[in-house]
């Protein structure tokens, strides 16, 4: 399936991509620079069927003939248009020398911006897609790239803010509850640094929250010294403020920084505040400081290379926010202080220790919640509550908990990540077990339950995912198939053409046709066939699960037909057989997707073409260690972009 090409009909694509961009008020120079910056993202989540990098003859077969026929007239010869000379590229090797130009070519192909409108017809859709895929495969094969990518200082997300305050002050009161929501950016995760902002409304809330949490905190948490004995009030304040700032800023603090904070202490002291109150005022400033609210990594103007290894303190932060969504603990601080954290063996041991810590559940919630999209089930599930009154808030929360507990266990217990697709166990409480028709689970707490029925086990047998991918009143094989293609395999289908006939809202039998038969009829339309041949069978295989993920044998009193044939030829009936096929024949796609997503989450940015070597390394390591969950985390932590930072070129400096 992954290698199946998508046959888009031109109006369909025109609908999706429309006319070429207009220079507008911004100016052409900016257009070019902008394009270069956003094209990589487009490749990762574009209309293309993204397949594992293929190497070989793509350029000669799929690209060169197209260039000769449609491009070189303008972009070749003595005076190539726009200074873009495509005639100079003889082979794949030459192409790899100039990835940015070829990213623009991919863009022009996929966006249909070239040849310019009004000229003679350009390549057909088939040829465009084939050429774009081939160029991408060539670029993916670039070796030895040493670009760790941009690392913009990241503002704490709401979850990170809450957890950091908890670990810093012992206050677990959800102080970020009223902060504006964090938007998700590249890679789809809300920790994406470039889409986290501090608008005035948030600044107001930081100011208020800082006062609130300091009032709630036990003073022993932030007063390391009190006046008395040999210590003057000023000395005690300074010691406390310096110690607090060091933990809050997650790095050593300079004297001038403490001096600055002491001004606030003195201000309060001078007007007669008591010692504790006066220290609190300085600490408020710590909690509103950019050094606390952003995960700052410092520039190294003196570094000569294109990138440099981050400091141990910075590494401690990357680790702790990756695995705990919170600040480093004392042990990490100490290792950073002694400069030994980046020692590979120490690092591996720390990853192991951190995964064992209950705080690592934050990663499962954050990563899995957003990747599988179940974290947001409350907003996304669109169940018709009149038809399904049993879909209560409690049941919905139990559904989500199963997924989070399951993913958490994969990493904590170091189980194979392939169990995300298929396994013989899951996590249940009494309510959810009853929902699934499983006996012998009592009480509200979740525990691991062995499954006799292999139709459950893995994310495709989870009520959270199955509910998420249903319509209000019926299941949707199309949505479920799309979820598998997008979230599990990362091979999303293109959007539907604009004039599709809609399907009925429920699954009653109409005109003697079952819902499935209607959907199959829909597939006879050639505009729909190629994509639905990929989508529908995956969903058909899950038809034994109803809107809320319960097992069923019948739909509208007709037996469920859960058979399907994948475009790659595999036949199956029912969820167990489908999962077995996915775990076997789609394993590489799944593993690549999971590795890219994990890297994206860890780096707080989308994965780009220059990350390909790092992704490949992670996959190799993961395969070598039997796909164990902890091995995936360790491989990501070991990866080049996780431990390095891009050096800014001199002209970027002020």
């Amino acid at each position: 399936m992954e290698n199946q090409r998508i046959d888009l009909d031109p109006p369909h694509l025109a609908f999706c991509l429309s006319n070429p961009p207009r220079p507008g008020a911004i100016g052409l120079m900016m257009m070019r620079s902008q394009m270069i910056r956003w094209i990589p993202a487009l490749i990762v989540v574009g209309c293309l069927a993204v397949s594992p990098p293929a190497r070989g003859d793509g350029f000669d077969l799929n690209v060169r003939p197209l260039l000769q026929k449609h491009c070189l007239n303008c972009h070749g010869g003595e005076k190539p248009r726009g200074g873009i000379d495509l005639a100079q590229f003889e082979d794949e090797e030459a192409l790899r020398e100039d990835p940015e130009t070829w990213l623009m070519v991919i863009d022009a192909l996929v966006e249909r911006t070239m040849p310019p409108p009004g000229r003679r017809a350009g390549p057909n859709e088939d040829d465009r897609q084939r050429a774009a895929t081939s160029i991408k495969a060539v670029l993916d094969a670039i070796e030895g790239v040493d670009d760790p990518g941009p690392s913009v200082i990241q503002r704490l997300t709401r979850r990170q803010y809450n957890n950091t305050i908890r670990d810093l002050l012992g206050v677990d009161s959800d102080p970020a509850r009223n902060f504006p929501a964090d938007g998700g950016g590249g890679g789809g995760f809300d920790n994406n640094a470039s889409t986290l902002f501090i608008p005035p409304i948030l600044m107001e809330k930081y100011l208020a929250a800082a006062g609130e949490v300091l009032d709630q905190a036990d003073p022993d948490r932030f007063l390391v010294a009190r006046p008395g004995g040999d210590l003057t009030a000023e000395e005690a304040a300074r010691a406390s403020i310096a110690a607090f700032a060091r933990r809050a800023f997650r790095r050593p603090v300079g004297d001038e920084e403490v001096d600055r904070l002491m001004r606030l202490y003195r201000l309060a002291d001078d007007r007669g505040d008591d010692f504790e109150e006066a220290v609190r005022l300085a600490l408020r400033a710590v909690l509103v400081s950019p050094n606390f609210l952003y995960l700052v990594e410092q520039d190294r103007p003196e570094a000569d290379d294109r990138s440099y290894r981050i400091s141990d303190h910075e590494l401690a932060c990357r680790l702790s926010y990756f695995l705990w969504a919170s600040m480093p603990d004392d042990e990490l601080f100490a290792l950073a202080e002694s400069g030994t954290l980046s020692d590979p063996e120490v690092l591996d041991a720390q990853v192991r220790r951190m995964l064992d810590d209950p705080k690592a559940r934050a990663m499962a919630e954050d990563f899995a919640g957003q990747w599988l999209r179940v974290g947001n089930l409350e907003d996304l599930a669109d169940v018709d509550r009149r038809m399904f009154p049993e879909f209560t808030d409690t049941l919905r929360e139990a559904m989500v908990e199963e997924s989070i507990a399951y993913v958490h266990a994969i990493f904590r217990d170091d189980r194979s990540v392939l169990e995300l697709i298929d396994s013989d166990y899951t996590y249940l409480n009494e309510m959810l077990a009853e929902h699934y028709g499983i006996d012998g689970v009592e009480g509200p707490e979740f525990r691991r339950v062995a499954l006799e029925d292999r139709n459950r086990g893995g994310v495709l047998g989870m009520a959270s995912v199955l509910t998420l991918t249903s319509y209000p009143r019926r299941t949707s094989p199309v949505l479920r198939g799309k979820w598998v293609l997008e979230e599990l395999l990362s091979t999303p289908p293109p959007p539907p053409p604009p004039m599709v006939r809609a399907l009925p809202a429920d699954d009653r039998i109409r005109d003697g046709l079952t819902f499935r038969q209607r959907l199959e009829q829909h597939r006879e339309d050639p505009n729909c066939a190629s994509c639905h041949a990929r989508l529908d069978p995956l969903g058909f295989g899950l038809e034994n699960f109803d809107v809320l993920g319960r097992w069923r044998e019948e739909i509208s009193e007709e037996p469920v037909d859960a058979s399907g044939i994948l475009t790659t030829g595999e036949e199956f009936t029912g969820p167990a057989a489908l999962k077995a096929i996915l775990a076997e024949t789609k394993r590489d796609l799944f593993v690549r997707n999971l590795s890219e997503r994990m890297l994206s989450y860890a780096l707080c940015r989308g994965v780009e073409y220059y990350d390909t070597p790092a992704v490949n390394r992670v996959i190799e390591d993961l395969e070598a260690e039997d796909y164990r969950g902890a091995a995936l985390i360790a491989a990501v932590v070991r990866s080049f972009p996780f431990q390095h930072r891009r050096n800014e070129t001199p002209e970027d400096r002020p």
Partner: protein
Amino acid sequence: MSRKNHPISRRTVLRGVGAMVGLPLLDAMTPAARAFGVDGNADDRPPVRMACLFWPNGCNPHTWTPEGHGRDFTLSPILQPMARHRDEILVLTHLSNQGTFTGDGHYVKDAAWLTGTTIHRTTGADLNSGGISIDQLAAQRIGLLTPLPSLELGVEPVTTGVDTNVGYTRLYGSHISWSTPTTPVAREINPRLAFDRLFRSEAGSRGAQDDDRSVLDLVAEDAKALRDRVGHEDRRKLDEYLDSVRAVETRIAFEASDRRARYRDDPEARADIEALGGRVDTYSHDPGRVRERSMDHSEHVALMLEILLLALRTDSTRIATFMFGNSVSNKNFSFLDGVSGGHHQLSHHENDEAKLAEYQVITTWHMEQCARLLDRMREIPEGEGTLLDNSMVLIGSALRDGNRHDPHNLPTVLAGRAGGTLSPGRHLIYGPDTPLCNLYVSMLDRVGAPVPRFADSTGPLEGLDNPEYQGRPYEESQRRGRRERS
């Protein structure tokens, strides 16, 4: 792979705006009324307010445009709720936002509704709207005259992740306000938080305000020190941080001022604020009704619009935006008679009569909510007229026919008299694809933030203040409409 090619920096943009405007800041601060050369003591005239109300997913294209033109027109079915405001609105036909002719069906249109630009297609790494939105441009010019430079409200949570169908981050679809091309402005969607922020957050004592100010002074120093030690992109983030620090400082200063007290102590405003506070509390403290409410979000919308109204009335801000929903919102409108589905789903009506009818009911409901806001604005006396007389309320969507994602002839209404500088009660038909940004030039002028050009504008929009101006004949728009459809 080097980062030689940088997008336009924030500073450059701000400089650019300054240059484009070509006016010293002082002039820009002149209250709007004075800018129009009204006689008498300009300072006593109520200021002109601007609100922009956005709804997603377009409208039934066959039942939006009024028949007739100039003063002689009949409201269309969707605009029926505006009947009681017929003489206070301008219906503007054939405006288009050329920057949005490209790209996908929703995000490109909606995110750039107020910027007039082409947003950059990205999954998140390089979010860029290509420009500042008109509300934020005005806020940067006249925002310092009020405690809040601007107010951004909505009802739907920010949608996250990437729309893999089209390759745009959904973040675009949750924002119409952009303070820089790379900074979308967060909206408040929780009525209680929005209300508290405006009317209850008054830091009790002078002491608490002093503390806030001292803390802000210090963290601004931290940010400046840090700014010198980080790279280009990070400096942009810190500039954003510093801007927000300044905005909060300004606000604190306003809260303490006498002028502020004058507005808030107005007994009628006080009564309305207290009444609204009660409504907001009822709404927030009644978890039992949460499910019921999700079936009918009229009260949520009503509360947000009332908050917007009181913010304008108390001069807490002069600039506000409101989003009825995010791009591609599939809000379930089955609480309305005759509707049985989600908004986006029904906007893809496939020219099916029944679906077109449902689509129409949904947009008509939006017009009813807007009309209620206008009712309230008309009730509030101000100077020699009403709040509505001193305001201009832009009501629109960033596409026309949702089924085709049609970016031409956008459904657009401008309500109010903007302090006597608009002459409403007309349906004005312009030439095909007249820039929507021409309207924005006219609006910015009236709110006291004049610009010679905005995005693809070719000048101010003709005839807005001239009661004699009739626009083009209705028949012509009909002929063009048929041609577009064929």
